């Protein structure tokens, strides 16, 4: 039996507990935000530098005439000029980004509805779950002839294909997320009295979030690719868009501007994928103590 002196049994117990707890504190302080940013950024900057150097070397080898394959020294200043002095590139970007945002939002809505329906109803799951994945193997460009027949040379035709490309990824991300919620968390939610809407709001959605964001990331890649294919095929003359510019620049054999447009398309894709979704994903994973992918 422990002695209960003036300080009492509890005070010793409390102190032991506090001691154990404090031993849990991490020894290593976290690196500053700037250092963390830099340690992630410099390898990427170096990779971009190397890619540009290889490009320059290929140009210097003169495998193709310089007016067909211009080097970075010709393309980058021209691109800078187009971005800062010329409104047409910005207008084209605006059209394309508006379409991408709208198509992605539509895919998000439809994907979430399908995903929820599939996880809710067993019969639906057996019927359509594999169909959704199957849909993803269809190259989006193969949908366009049908889309043009259905909707004509319109934005609807593009949206149709973008949604077909992106919605399955949204749905799959959600289905996968909900399917893999640890059972113990669902039970904890039930014991806490989270039923119906509360169950979705406080347990199911937050638990499925990491996988859902992964699905969004993939959906964005599909949407962006589908949209570019669409803009090359479905040319609406009154609306300047990035894909339209590519076509025109090829017809005019303006390789300097063409490669510039390609760089813009690449940058937009990467920015949304890595900077936006990548950061959200990393933050979610870090907060939950999951390994950073």
């Amino acid at each position, binding site marked *: 039996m422990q002695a209960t002196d003036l300080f009492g049994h509890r005070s010793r117990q409390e102190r032991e*507990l506090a001691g*154990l*707890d404090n031993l849990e504190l991490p020894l290593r302080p976290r690196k500053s935000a700037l250092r963390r940013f830099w340690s992630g950024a410099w390898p990427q900057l170096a990779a971009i530098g190397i890619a540009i150097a290889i490009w320059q070397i290929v140009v210097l080898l003169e495998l193709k005439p310089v007016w067909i394959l211009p080097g970075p020294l010709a393309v980058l200043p021209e691109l800078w000029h187009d971005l800062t002095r010329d409104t047409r590139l910005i207008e084209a970007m605006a059209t394309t980004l508006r379409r991408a945002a709208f198509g992605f939002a539509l895919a998000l809505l439809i994907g979430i509805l399908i995903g929820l329906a599939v996880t809710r109803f067993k019969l639906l799951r057996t019927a359509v779950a594999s169909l959704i994945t199957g849909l993803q193997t269809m190259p989006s460009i193969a949908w366009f002839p049908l889309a043009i027949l259905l909707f004509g040379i319109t934005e609807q035709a593009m949206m149709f294909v973008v949604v077909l490309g992106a919605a399955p990824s949204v749905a799959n991300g959600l289905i996968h997320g909900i399917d893999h919620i640890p059972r113990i968390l669902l039970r*904890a939610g039930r*014991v806490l009295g989270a039923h119906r809407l509360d169950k979705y709001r406080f347990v199911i959605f937050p638990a499925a979030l990491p996988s859902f964001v992964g699905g969004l990331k993939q959906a964005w890649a599909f949407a962006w690719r589908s949209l570019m294919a669409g803009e090359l095929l479905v040319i609406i003359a009154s609306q300047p868009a990035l894909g339209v510019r590519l076509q025109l620049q090829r017809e005019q054999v303006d390789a300097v501007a063409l490669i510039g447009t390609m760089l813009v398309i690449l940058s937009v894709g990467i920015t949304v994928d890595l900077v936006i979704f990548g950061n959200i994903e990393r933050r979610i994973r870090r907060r939950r*103590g999951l390994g950073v992918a």
Partner: protein
Amino acid sequence: MSAAHGLATITPRLEAAPSGATPAIEVAGVHKAYGPSGSHVLALSDLTLNVAKGEFVCLVGASGCGKSTLLNILAGLDRPQLGTFSTRGRVALLFQEAALFPWLTAAQNIELALRLAGVPRSERQTRTHELLHVVQLEGWGDKRPHELSGGMRQRTAVARALAQGAEILLMDEPFGSLDAMTRDILHDELERLWKDAGFTVLFVTHDVREAVRLGDRVAVLTSRPGQVAEELTIDLPRPRLMSDPEVATLAERITHRLREEVLRHAGD
């Protein structure tokens, strides 16, 4: 402010001293089988058990005695095929893993339980703070579960259970995955909370000494089907230690009883 004082403001309706006679948990003739009919495994058969209000009862049994099944039934996660059961007062279930939501901080986990229990927003923050104090985790509220040790996570889970306004704690091997020192301290901690707040505990464990250390009563379950084979009242004075010779002697007796039970399934 003493911990006891903090608790009194949190669960005011428990201030009245528990009377030994009122049952908090009544289980009569409960029967539960799994699997398709014919090939099913009988988990519980004709199980009868009463736990008085404010009592600390430990359930021990070998594998397959349906300990967890019984707790799931009492927590409303599962249904028996036959028999009746009733619980008086709110029930909280604690698992071997703390089962905290990893996307919330410790404080937010407690706050969510308060919210789902219908505590108005204006009171939640103060009560979360009080509950963190009760389990001695002040200053750790903004940490996420993965940043806490196993013992701290379990204490957060206890605070979450108290946030539900639970008067009955069902504990399913809650300290099973902790190191011995943390477990010993948490035994003291749980005993103190139980004494101060006067809730009822049904504590499942496979560790016989732990059962004797904590319980007013230890119920020994048979395996497949699970039934109460023996109930022992532990008259040893508290606080006890796992290493007390009296605890060891009683534990020895119960272990012997459990081994006989396992032999019954040897198949000869």
